[in-house]
């Protein structure tokens, strides 16, 4: 028998949902400031509408909940709040974008909003090069908020700590606390992000001003936007040409540093902050990342050299290796046009980039995809099994690995890693099937689907304003599910079913 959720369950969910929406709405003040700084009037009104709509929605939720005292959340509440909260934020975040007139429909604006929040980077914007600074900043800020986690924003300022807060934190696709208290963890994530924001933006501003040739004002704007998109492995860019616009190897190199830095587990950032730099080289995630990155680079390089796609080493590095790093960190910056993937890259190079996108980078970072820890554990389990066959029957085989601390590989860990990997692969295939159904070729469909569900943002040209509306919906679903790592969305589905069919 399915139990129907009680009114109290809904009130608890509404209360915390309201707080998340309030936190999200307050952030719309920042693009207003940017618009004022650049003397843009209409975007101020667009964001004022978005701000008031968000604050009204948040207040309405809290008012409807009418919780007199602090209530602890169950796992179900936490998961539903997070998954539903992301959907509500997608709609609210899309309002100022749609009002700017640069998105053909509200669905397109929602696509952009989810792509930003989920740090994907696929875009349906029209005439991006004439978009206001305010709206452009909002696209990038959504990546920053979504990358650190909308719940992390709310946890830092609006929600009291406790087990309920931890349940929301887990629901957002993070299962490792950095500090014992989840609110302290959220605050640490923001502290790290803001310090890196300052340093990274400064690096990119200097590079943009001296190397690229941007004016100081634009260098600051581009530096901030590109940092948010790179550190949060998002992939939006202020200009339609992505990184091609800058035509500077130094700028490309700086974005690689920020992308890779953003792809590292926040726990490792914490270790580095505490002077434990050796952790960086010992951790199984980093080691797996180095191995897979080398393999994918080698595969792509062989294919591109054999196909005479790029004539020299510098071109191969800047056009070939760059895309692989961008794909593997699930950022989505590009130094080639999206059509060039299918027109010029050979099948083996495409396979390398699809694999890189599908695998992703670190757990508890802003990257998408299967994640390196899972790949590493599955690899170690394979090695252990082979070892077991080679050893005498009576021998005991055990495998140790280092992830923040020394651990033994057990079946439970491997099972969990394998399950998540299977789910990711199924979601990649689901999107591929949907695109094939819409009439796109298999390879293109697989590329785009992996990019959407892995929250990468590289496109081979399918993601366009003219693509079928149902495919836009599928990609929104994939981006949402990929970012939250499925569990909270499945719980939301279960909650809706139990509400309808429960007794």
């Amino acid at each position, binding site marked *: 028998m399915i139990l129907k959720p009680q009114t109290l369950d809904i009130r608890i969910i509404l209360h915390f949902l309201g707080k998340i929406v309030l936190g999200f709405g307050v952030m719309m003040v920042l693009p207003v400031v940017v618009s004022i700084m*650049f*003397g*843009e*009037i*209409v975007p101020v*009104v*667009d964001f*004022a*509408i978005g701000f*008031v*709509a968000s*604050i*009204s929605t948040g*207040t*309405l939720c*809290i*008012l409807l909940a*009418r919780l*007199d005292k602090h209530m602890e959340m169950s796992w179900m509440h936490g998961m539903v709040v997070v998954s539903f909260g992301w959907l509500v934020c997608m709609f609210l975040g899309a309002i100022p974008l749609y*009002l700017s007139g640069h998105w053909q429909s509200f669905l397109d604006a929602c696509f952009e909003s989810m792509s930003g929040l989920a740090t994907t980077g696929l875009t349906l914007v029209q005439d991006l*090069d*004439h*978009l*206001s*600074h305010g709206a452009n900043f909002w696209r990038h800020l959504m990546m920053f908020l979504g990358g650190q986690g909308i719940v992390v924003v709310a946890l830092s300022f609006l929600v009291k700590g406790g087990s309920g807060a931890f349940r929301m934190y887990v629901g957002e696709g993070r299962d490792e606390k950095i500090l014992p208290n989840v609110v302290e963890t959220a605050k640490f994530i923001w502290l790290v992000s803001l310090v890196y924001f300052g340093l990274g933006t400064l690096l990119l501003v200097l590079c943009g001003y001296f190397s*690229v*040739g*941007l*004016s100081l004002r*634009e260098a600051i704007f581009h530096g901030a936007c590109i940092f948010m998109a790179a550190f949060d492995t998002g992939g939006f860019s202020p*200009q*339609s*040409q992505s990184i*091609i*616009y*800058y*035509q500077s*190897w130094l700028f490309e190199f700086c974005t690689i540093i920020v992308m890779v830095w953003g792809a590292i587990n926040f726990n490792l950032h914490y270790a580095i902050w505490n002077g434990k730099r050796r952790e960086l080289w010992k951790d199984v995630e980093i080691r797996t990342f180095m191995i897979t990155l080398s393999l994918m680079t080698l595969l792509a390089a062989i294919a591109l050299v054999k196909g005479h*796609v*790029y*004539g*020299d080493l*510098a*071109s*191969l*590095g*800047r*056009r070939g290796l760059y895309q692989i790093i961008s794909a593997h960190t699930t950022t989505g910056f590009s*130094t*080639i*046009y999206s*059509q*060039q993937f299918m*027109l*010029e890259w050979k099948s083996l190079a495409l396979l390398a980039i699809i694999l890189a996108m599908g695998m992703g980078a670190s757990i508890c970072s802003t990257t998408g995809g299967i994640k390196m820890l899972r790949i590493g554990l599955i690899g170690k389990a394979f090695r252990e099994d082979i070892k077991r066959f080679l050893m005498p029957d009576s021998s005991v085989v055990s495998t140790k690995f280092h992830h923040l601390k020394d651990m033994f590989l057990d079946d439970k860990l491997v099972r969990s890693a394998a399950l998540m990997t299977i789910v990711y692969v199924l979601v990649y295939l689901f999107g591929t099937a949907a695109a094939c159904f819409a009439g796109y070729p298999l390879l293109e469909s697989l590329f785009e689907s992996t990019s959407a569900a892995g929250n990468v943002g590289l496109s081979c040209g399918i993601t366009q304003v003219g693509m079928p509306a149902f495919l836009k919906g599928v990609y929104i679903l994939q981006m949402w599910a990929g970012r939250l790592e499925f569990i909270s969305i499945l719980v939301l589905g279960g909650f809706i079913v139990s509400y309808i069919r429960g007794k």
Partner: protein
Amino acid sequence: MKQRLSFCLAVVVVFLALGRWCEAASSQELIAEAKLFDGARVMYDGEVIGEVLARGDHAWINVYDGNNAVSVWVPAALLEKIRHTGGYKYAGDRVRLHGIFHRSCPEHGGTLDIHAQDLLVVEPGQPVIEDLSSEKILILVVLLGVLICLLMGRIFWMRRAHK
């Protein structure tokens, strides 16, 4: 007769070469047929967007033709013609340029670019006047009214809860 034939053939070859030498191309054609256009002299039209990115005696400009923007490597002498670049507040100068197209430029790290040889501003850029619609103001006022009502409701409920 043979001489005449040879002459005609030569004329045809020269015309074909000239045609190949300077083809009008859109960004979509340049990207899709990059191998075909590689090394050819092309004519490309579009709006200058972003900023002029100065690099010594040359600069990069990005020219948008309605589908994609293509990077163009321009000698400083030609840059004086460009007055406005496109952005939120300006429609940039529309330029027509001739230059050598590279699918993967060996001089610039394999980028797809055009090395401009001459450049003409066909339509000067101009400021874009912002259009604030009254509908947006109306929506904002209505939403503000809703928000005030909600906040009053919240204050009322909080006072009741305290009692």
